[in-house]
């Protein structure tokens, strides 16, 4: 407490912090970026290990024999799917019943706020079919879910075949202590959303679905299968869920352990792991893998059908088979044995998965970075904002100590309040417009411009966003008085603290999003004053604004996935990414779009306001 009470030491510390403010800020920024890049360096990361006792030492044998039969079922399913031209509900019900499951169906319908051009759907109607294998060994209070999506075209037939094959095989085993629910969902995430809402009796997004007729115990874990070929070369695990939520790390460990045991190549972000961490290419491989995870997490979308389970506190992952040009192929029997092994271990669980980490980044499947290691990277960026705030505070407090009469002081402070409140309110109203207008004014936009609904939504969003840039001039017209020197300092103090709290909260829920936003917004926030050259800094400002961050992220993401795009395609992709983000919000309740529109963008506008302070 010496620092808080000893005036001399305080004064020394504060004077040092204000004198060296800019260098310290630069140093913190560089240190934060370096720290982040260092996270992927293997000696700095931890090796994954199984924390859950129930899954660690217990031996299980995988004996699933019926890969060929599963393939035959898959072909039959494909034929029926083609015949019906959608989900063959009757056939699925019959087949599941023949395998001894309790079978139920759930139908759902949903009208999207605007047409989804990526998946070409607007009014969605579908049916989920699920069968419950009742646990013979325990009181059926807990359940596991295995799901496979019924996708359009020829995709994922093998996944459904394997699911049915496993159901048949599991039915004949006696060791199940948890109900196992086999779910085939239509229209991927929309069907999954309907089923999960039905299962948990909630309705968060206003979707229409029929109530579930049968249910098992509380779901402990779930896997979603995606297989589109008869043989595979490697298996990929997808962890990123809604709002950047991740399943417990033990689920990834379990997957890795079985891949090792059975001898299947396994990847994360579609990347194999390499052993040469000490070479440059090995390190850059790890960085790229981690960056892919960061970008996927930051997007806040569910990257597989498992993504929505996480919201209900259910650990879930998607396992997808990849068939590339490698020599060595794995057949469906082996994949089935892997899934069987994972379910047997999950069956042994005594409590929910909670032993291992929930906050992590993975530079490879065997190494992870936990929250304690990656948070300092963000903390170093956030501390810049606090230092700037301290500096501003010292500047603001200093003059009144020198003035002789209190009158001048009062006159200075009263425009301060008004000059803060007006921009604050106006920029938030702009944010609210950005949130509400695109979806509610799409019809009007379609009437007046020759664009499709989806384009109308995205272009309206971009238009509102750009219109916000004209604000500073209008704000000043509203505030009749001229902005004072004191005024912008107060505004900046408020804006900097606002940004710090905002980014801090974001980083706690979704580290990646918080970090990416901090990376671009902190430099702007730290060094903006009305005195810097206007044109140049305005350009820098726009380049570092949230919308441009998204644009760069799109290009970077494509680059990282080894699918570089041209400018033209990149722009199209950018538009589709925005429309997907808005759809995710309305369909599944993803929070990224409202966060950006209602909080981050207004906060950025405040800094824009300071730049054009008169």
């Amino acid at each position, binding site marked *: 407490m010496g620092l808080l009470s000893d*005036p001399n030491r305080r004064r020394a510390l504060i004077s040092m912090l204000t004198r060296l403010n800019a260098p310290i800020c630069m140093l913190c920024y560089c240190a934060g970026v370096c720290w982040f890049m260092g996270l992927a360096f293997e000696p700095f990361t931890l090796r994954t290990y199984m924390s859950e006792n129930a899954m660690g030492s217990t031996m299980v044998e995988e004996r699933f024999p019926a890969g060929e039969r599963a393939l035959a079922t898959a072909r039959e399913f494909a034929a029926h799917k083609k015949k019906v031209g959608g989900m063959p509900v009757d056939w699925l019900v019959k087949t599941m019943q023949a395998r001894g499951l309790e079978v139920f169906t759930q139908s759902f319908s949903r009208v999207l706020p605007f047409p989804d051009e990526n998946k070409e759907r607007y009014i969605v109607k579908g049916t989920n079919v699920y069968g419950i294998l009742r646990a013979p060994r325990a009181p059926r209070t807990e359940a596991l879910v295995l799901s496979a999506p019924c996708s359009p075209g020829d995709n994922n037939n093998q996944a459904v075949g394997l699911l049915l094959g496993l159901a048949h095989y599991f039915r004949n085993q006696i060791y199940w202590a948890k109900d196992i629910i086999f779910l085939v969902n239509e229209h991927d995430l929309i069907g999954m959303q309907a089923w999960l809402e039905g299962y948990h009796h909630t309705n968060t997004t206003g979707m229409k679905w029929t109530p579930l007729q049968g249910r098992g115990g509380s779901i402990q874990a779930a896997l979603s299968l995606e297989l589109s070929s008869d043989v595979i070369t490697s298996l990929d695990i997808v962890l990123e869920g809604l709002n950047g*939520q991740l399943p417990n790390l033990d689920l990834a460990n379990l997957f890795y352990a079985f891949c090792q045991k059975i001898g299947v190549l396994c990847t994360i972000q579609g990347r194999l792991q390499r052993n040469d961490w000490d070479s440059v290419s090995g390190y850059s491989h790890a960085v790229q893998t981690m960056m892919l995870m960061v970008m996927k997490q930051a997007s806040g979308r569910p990257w597989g059908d498992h993504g929505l389970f996480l919201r209900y*506190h259910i650990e879930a992952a998607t396992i997808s088979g990849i068939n590339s040009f490698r020599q060595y192929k794995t057949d469906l029997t082996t994949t089935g044995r892997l899934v069987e092994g994972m379910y047997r271990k999950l069956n042994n669980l005594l409590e929910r998965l909670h032993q291992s980490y929930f906050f992590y980044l993975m530079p490879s499947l065997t190494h992870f970075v936990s929250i304690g290691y990656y948070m300092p990277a963000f903390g170093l960026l956030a501390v810049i904002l606090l230092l700037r*705030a301290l500096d501003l*505070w010292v500047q603001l407090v200093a003059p009144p100590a020198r003035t002789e009469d*209190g009158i001048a002081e009062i006159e200075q402070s009263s425009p301060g309040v008004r000059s803060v409140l007006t921009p604050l309110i106006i920029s938030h109203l702009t944010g609210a417009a950005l949130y509400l207008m695109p979806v509610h004014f799409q019809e009007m936009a379609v009437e007046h411009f020759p664009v499709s609904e989806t384009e109308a939504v995205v272009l309206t969003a971009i238009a509102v966003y750009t219109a916000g840039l004209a604000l500073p001039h209008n704000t000043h017209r509203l505030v009749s008085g001229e902005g004072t020197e004191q005024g912008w300092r107060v505004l900046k103090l408020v804006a900097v603290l606002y940004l*710090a709290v905002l980014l801090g909260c974001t980083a*706690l*829920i979704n580290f990646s999003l918080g970090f990416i936003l901090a990376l671009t917004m902190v430099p702007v926030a730290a060094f903006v004053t009305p005195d810097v050259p206007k044109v140049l800094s305005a350009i820098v400002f726009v380049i570092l604004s949230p919308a441009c961050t998204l644009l760069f992220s799109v290009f970077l993401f494509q680059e990282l996935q080894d699918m570089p795009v041209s400018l033209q395609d990149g722009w199209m992709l950018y538009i589709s990414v925005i429309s997907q983000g808005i759809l995710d919000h309305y369909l599944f309740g993803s929070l990224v779009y409202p966060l950006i529109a209602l909080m981050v963008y207004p906060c950025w506008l405040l800094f824009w306001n300071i730049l054009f302070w008169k």
Partner: protein
Amino acid sequence: MAAPLTLLLIVAVTIRAVLYRSSLAELIAERVEVVSPITAWKRVIEGLALLDLGVSPYSGDVFHETPLIIYLFHFLVDYAEITFMLADVITAVALYFAVRDYNKKVFRKQKFALEADRYPHDCLELIRRPKEMFYIPLKVAMFYLLNPFTILSCVAKSTCGLNNAVISLFILTTIKGNVLLSAVFLCLATYQSIYPLTLCAPAMLYLMQHQFIPVNFRRVSFWWFVTQYLFMFLGSLLVLTCLSFFLLGSWDYMSSVYGFILSVPDLTPNIGLFWYFFAEMFEHFRLFFLCVFQINVFFYTIPLSIKLKEHPVFLMFMQLAVISIFKSYPTVGDTALYLAFLPVWGHLHRFLRNIFLVSCVLLACSALFPVLWHLWIYAGSANSNFYYAITLLFNVAQILLVSDYFYAFLRREHHLTSGLYLKKKDGSEATLVLK
């Protein structure tokens, strides 16, 4: 000054009325930071339902408010929203008039001291001016009514708002110098939540100052006044408890209200310090630490009363803060009450040392409460330690805030007696260090 106050009241009531109509109201009423097991409106409704069925409202361990509250809402349940808005308005208006009177008194005292030439000459910049004091009552009302904490508390229909109204009426009557009403309102506040009992000391100090009775243990007039006040206080307490007994026909409420407050059986997380500590503790230490924690709330009365016996209103502020930090089921509504007093001590700003740090921490904590709650309860990825860490930080910041004001107050008093620019013996500039 009536016009700005009216405008303020209209704005405040409008905000609340709008929020009552929005979908946020339900969400807010569930927040643990805003409602405690005692003050939750849901529980009051449950108690009312039990009462209507002819069952004791205290059966079933859900309802923990006092019998008077339940009978109040027995008649007013359809007008609950208006009642809570009215409670906030009463609090604000009472604080407004109390602070106005107090400021008048402070100013008069300062004038006498100036005329008697009691202040050192370099202290003129510490003298308070009527111009800056003019807006303080309005600012106090504004700080209370527009404080997000108060608004949340009111929208959640937390009965904490009613307690605040009673306490502020007590403050008003005390500052007006009405002994009987002061004792009655203090008794009502005590009846509601025990802890305001500690406000007894500042009230008596203030009233004695008002009636020019010296605080001296050897004087008969002192003891006579204390007896009088305590008699009125205990008498009305007796009346209240008996009234409650006759209303319900049983003493159930004693254990269910006061036992509940004192023995802390409900460990639902809140912004206080009790829940985590007692959830972690071995059962056989429980009683001991319970005593320690509860004595902690009351204990500060003695040293603070000795130190601040000349300044009972500041003492009152300190006590309110201590209660709201250390009570067993604190909510943000309690915090809002003492935060409303901050403008009264606006002249201490030049002596505050950590105000920037503390306000940043309080701001960050208020934002982090819901985030960490979400991570812990909904996402399941964080755990109770995360939430408690923020609780702890929030309380540390509050303590720092209060002790900072305490220090600043004492320092100003010190300067007023010994000069603003202190010199060391060798003539260099001296600094005051609190150790």
